């Protein structure tokens, strides 16, 4: 293992002990913490933050589920228990700005915590990455070349329709110098991957097809070799769909931050 640079992941507790405050709190989320595939996204994003020299921190073991799936399944009690416990922690650290790689955490923290006393400036990592690109802090480096590769972007409902973030992830992908090809149903008309509203945590109701298969067929029809996502649940659903179509050798599913990390050689 030869890394020129050592990446670090400071926690809020570390910084507080040193009487410091981060520029931004990285809210990792449950999938980013526990899901083997999405942990790689968390790591890619942390490497970018390190590389660019952002003073960030995570909550580490003090973080807990935002309560989003519980709320959408109908369990408001559980949601509010989670929310209020999280808000106590966040307010305790005087957190002002939060970035997260999960659109569900993003939506909940941004739109639903204020009513319960948690008011923060919350942005999604696609917006954060776009900012870094616009400021010239992420530069095209001698990493992987994307020239001539076809990438299609799958809009996450809770990023797109829910919060109207359509351009930021596309802007990030444009920095790769790849060939961005769009699916038929995109942006406000984007088709869900099938995971939202608690569906990820149960078997689908009886039907004639799985939603993720329907969506992956549309993605494959673009001829792209890479499906870019910006959500842990879309990541799983799209990856499963690609496997269902036996295309996993030809088509890969990546989060936008992984693609930027690859481009940067991180």
């Amino acid at each position, binding site marked *: *293992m030869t*890394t020129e640079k050592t*990446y670090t*992941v400071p926690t809020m507790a570390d910084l507080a002990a040193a009487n410091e405050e981060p520029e931004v709190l990285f809210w990792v989320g*449950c999938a980013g*913490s*526990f899901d083997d595939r999405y942990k790689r996204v*968390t790591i890619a994003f942390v490497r970018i933050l390190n590389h660019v020299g952002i003073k960030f921190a*995570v909550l*580490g*073991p003090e*973080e807990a*589920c935002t*309560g989003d*799936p*519980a*709320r959408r*399944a*109908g*369990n*408001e*009690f*559980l949601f*509010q228990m*989670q929310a*209020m416990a999280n*808000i106590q922690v966040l*307010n305790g650290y005087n957190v002002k700005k939060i970035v997260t790689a999960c659109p569900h955490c993003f*939506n909940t923290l941004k*739109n*639903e915590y*204020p*009513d*319960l006393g948690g*008011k923060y400036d919350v942005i999604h990592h696609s917006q954060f990455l776009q900012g870094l690109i616009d400021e010239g802090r992420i530069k095209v480096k001698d990493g992987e070349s994307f020239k001539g590769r076809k990438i299609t972007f799958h809009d996450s*409902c*809770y990023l797109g*329709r*829910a*919060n109207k973030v359509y351009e930021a992830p596309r802007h990030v992908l444009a920095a790769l110098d790849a060939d961005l090809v769009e699916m038929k149903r995109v942006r*406000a*008309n*984007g088709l869900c991957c099938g995971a*939202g*509203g*608690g*569906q990820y*945590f*149960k*078997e*689908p*109701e*009886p*039907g*004639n*097809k*799985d*939603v993720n298969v*329907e*969506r992956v067929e549309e993605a494959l029809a673009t001829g792209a070799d890479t499906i870019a996502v910006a959500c842990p649940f879309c990541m799983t659903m799209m990856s499963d769909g690609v496997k269902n179509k036996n295309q996993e050798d030809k088509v890969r599913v990546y989060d936008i931050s992984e693609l930027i990390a690859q481009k940067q050689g991180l």
Partner: protein
Amino acid sequence: MEIIQQILFVAALTAVAWYISKRVRLISRAIKLGRPENRYDHADERLKTMLLVAFGQKKMFTNLLVGLMHFVIYAGFIIINIEILEIILDGVLGTHRLFAPYITPVYSILIDVFELLAFGVLIVCIVFLCRRFVARVARFQQERHREMTEWPRKDAAIILIAEILLMIAFLTWNASDSVLRDRGVGHYGELRGIVPDFLISQYLKPLFTSFSDTGLIAYERTAWWLHILGILAFAIYVTYSKHLHIALGFPNVYFSDLQPKGEMQNMPEITKEVQLALGIPLSTNADGSQANDNGEQPGADSPAEIGRFGAKDVYDLKWINLMNAYSCTECGRCTSACPANITGKKLSPRKIMMDTRDRLEDIRRGWQANGDDYKDDKSLLGDYITVEEINACTTCQACINACPININPLDIILQLRRYRVMEESQAPASWNAMFSNIENNMAPWKFSPSDRFNWADQVNEVK
């Protein structure tokens, strides 16, 4: 003869006005069954939304051609109403083309515009009938959508055919009137030289040249009466039909949601209980108050007595949900965009709205048959909407996005889910597992919370 016509006309007008006001009161009472919620805030933003989405029909233009066709009917509906004003005054006063002598140069231009629109409406209604019954656009078909039973399909056909007949009556009335004017018959002749032939109806005049004067007068009167009585009957019919959107579409958009589509509404009554359970003082906001972003006190507009959690029936929903139901035109754009429906699940957002209105109309029928205090033992969840339907929703908001008049079926689904989970404790088993994982492990999966930060150990490992 004239005076008899005037008396009949005033009688018809009064009867229709009385009946419609009765219907309006009933529908308004049904909408008010919903829980109160203040939607009179942010007037400028609401007005702007209404101008764009309702008056400007912004969302209809997602499909440009269909948007344009619908706009022709809409513009026809709004603008031809100016002509209705003259028709009504003529009917009451026993006059003929009352405005013509006073606004002579403008008059013929106005009628030309009305005729052009009437012709446009006629053509578009034929195209729309063809889309439904010949081209068989999927979202209107019962084979594909079980909520498109006989009545909704018949309702659509009745409306389109009625509009076609009304436009034919209007155009042929003008044509027969023009012929009578040319011939100088009675008072019709008085407008000779004042009112010229009109844009469209001039081409229909040959149909009437073989008529005798008496026959022509008979046709002119019949067409005039059919046209106005048709409009009055249509106005009554609309209150029983999906077509009510022509009136309710505007307030429905005005009062529609302003918050981001992804935001689920907070339940302040639960906040208090959770704060007590966690031992948090009841005021936790940074500013030391419980006021939310809108400057409202949580619970300020919730009833003093906490009802049930979530919604089992229309009484538990908000009034805007019920106005949504009465405004729904059953176009099915929501259902065509719904990922659950596309993949063959039972959920159809359109059916959620239709079921909600059916429930309200059943309650209304109950009042009329058994008195105003009547309550049956049915409920929206269970007797109209099934658990399988609400459990299939991915909360992706495609339905809200697709609706041309900002109806929110998702809000109803989520309120029904809240009832199902919090009052009946009947979540699917795997959701209960997810709940208990969140409660015990702080994540929806069964991982130890102490392992939550383990990923950081791999941050320096080469990929």
